[in-house]
């Protein structure tokens, strides 16, 4: 499983609607609207599906684009101590 900290950018008026749609996606937790532009989102997806999650976010009406601020894939690397 990968965990990513994402910033979803949307127009000011679209933000509440976008946030509501994001909350409907099971892989995501949302952390509020910030700076009148961004919704902070954490995506938790099985290996190989993160890109599809981001694509799905990008396709939501009102979303300008999605940025990654953090990504960890440590579960997927052999030999990394827990």
């Amino acid at each position, binding site marked *: 499983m990968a965990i990513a900290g994402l910033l979803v950018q949307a127009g000011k008026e679209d933000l509440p609607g976008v946030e509501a749609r994001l909350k409907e996606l099971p892989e995501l937790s949302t*952390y509020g609207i*910030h700076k009148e532009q961004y919704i902070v989102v954490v995506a938790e997806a099985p290996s*190989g599906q993160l*890109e599809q999650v981001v694509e799905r976010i990008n396709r939501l009406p009102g979303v300008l*684009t999605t*940025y990654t*601020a*953090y*990504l960890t894939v440590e579960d997927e690397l052999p030999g*990394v101590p827990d």
Partner: protein
Amino acid sequence: MEITRREFLKMSAAGAALMAIGCPVAAWAAKGEGEPDRWVKGVCRYCGTGCGVMVGVKGGKVVTVKGDPKNHNAGFLCLKGALMTSVIYAKERITQPLIRKNGKLTPASWDEALNLVASKFKEAIAQHGPKSVAYYGSGQALTEETYLASKIFKAGLKCNNVDGNPRLCMASAVGGYVTTFGKDEPMGSYDDIDNASCFFIIGSNTSECHPILFRRIAARKEANPATKIIVVDPRVTNTTRIADIHISFIPGTDLALLNSMAYVIIKEEMDNPRFHGAYCAFMDKEGKPQTFEDYKKFLEDYAPEKAEKITGIPAKTIKEVAKIFAQSSATMSMWCMGINQRIQGVWANNLIHNLHLLTGQIGRPGATTFSLTGQPNACGGVRDAGGLSHMLPAGRLIANKEHRNQMEKLWGLPEDSLNPEPGLPTIALFEALKEGKIKAMLILCTNPAQSLPDVNRYREAMARKDKFICLIEVFQDAETVQFADVVLAPAFWCERDGVYGCSERRYALIEKAIEPPGQCRPSVNILVDLAKRMGVDPKLVPYNNAADIWDEWRAVAKPTVYNFWGITRERLRKESGLKWPCPSEDHPGTNIRYVRGEDPLVPPDHPTKYFFYGRPDGKAVIWFRPYVGCAEGPDSEYSFVLTTGRVLDQWHTSTMTGKVPEIQRSYPKAFVEINDKDAKKLGIQTGDHVQLETRRDKMVFEARVGEVCRPGLVFVPWFDPKLLINKLTINAVDPISKQPEFKICAVKVSKAAKA
């Protein structure tokens, strides 16, 4: 409160996202069990934006990558930058030297491989002279690697056949800056984005190719809704989503648009005579001095109604954008390959600069003319350090005796000992390989068997039995590996330290975070070892590591206008990048060049505010550059225009992004975009197989039908090694920059049977 490790990681992820937008993160700041052992500062490996990254290391392995909040990207990364971990640990890594024996690459010792390479180069030089060998480098190599390789060949072997893949992407931008301002590299920086009130984006799909800069542009628009965004592109890309005006035009005609905008600006008295009268010279295309009145006469051919016939852009739109450009409080132009990869690339660059000089939209926060770079170190490494066939370090030219003599002194060589004849630029270099004139070539960190235009021609050249190619390459599945006689195994990205210089003149350090796998060695160590074995004077390569080379390079640049003496290794370790000029260790770096009080190279008592010190008369040039069409336009037989480019997450030849399962699943293969009206006429639907045929070759792609391409235009991304679109592109080059015209060639489009 007890939290699980997974919860902690989620909090870290949210905390990093909040930090990126400057929000308090106290709740997430507590150190927990999931925290990496240490964070190591670096720079993203991909595009020329040069985003700062923090590499999280645990148990000696990279486990996490996050944006560096102190660098210009303020903690943001695009997805491909954040997914670097899978690339480092890809199973395709080359971990020991390989020598081709009986047609197969087989493991060898470093001694065996390096001795073989050295003997082949020595043999070629002994039998055919120094012109028979070459180095082909990369805008992804470290600055220290490019500087060193260039020195070994130019000073050690007296061979100027030193070129690199920036010739394919940025050479026209260099030509534009040098011919207009006298010196390469932009005068502005990314900070201008936060101050611009008009963005003129031409020939750049910023959203997909430079996503972090697109974010900053979108943020500027959001903070100041009056900001106008003009996007000039024959495709309706994701960048146009934030445009106030999107201008589609007939591909290859943008020179007419740019001249027409200049015509409108003057005709409607929106120019700034106080600026261009004091700080600009006018020149015709041969470089003969002209007057402003001559310029007005030259522009008569580009009245909007005339330009409309050439470009397909309504005259009304041309007038409107000219007005917005000139009358905004600060206009920032940005462009990329759509302008540079053209046979009139330098001229197109000049014409963008013309608009800024004519209106005085330059040298103020937000008012600047800014070339976006494709690779992470095309600017800092190849352009600045002199890794091209006509250049010496820090803007010096091989053809200039005074410049050669300066370098001979700095490098401890006898006077007049450097070879005065410029070497071969990329396409000419591979033509020479094809003709058997280049006998031995060293290729570092690039994949020409996929990235050259008309690539069948040059794959054939690389396949010659009598040539010798040594490749320093990270991945065994890179296309060029199949043509290599020896492959050397380098340390990759954060497995060694070195400097990258991005589009805004910012130098930043990638620190070593982990040990390289197997027998991999830093490329600077490989190059030093190889040079000594080739018989290069050991005094020319007295380096133990990249830091030694950096110190020499600082000294070499110090007497020039590239002066970055103050950017020491120690400062780079502490700070997240610094912008040159930076002449002393207490200098903070420069945001705006050529302006008194901003640029340390303009004396504080200089009598005027602006000083284009790269030019002999201190004046920038407004060039008369007539509209000239492309090398191979559509005709009755090949009736479409083929253009190529990037998609959001795949990068260049996908040797890196292709290792990331998430990206590979999203963009598994190349496709052809075709306009829905054209598709209807040809009976093509999305998912159908479509044959593209140019005068070079033909291939079949899956169709994506829609409104992205204008009618008559098709687009194919170039990342896919299984569908090498460069088999179809043309090798015609700009006469000044020698950059090929990847962006336009004629193509026949037809529906193909499904396999």
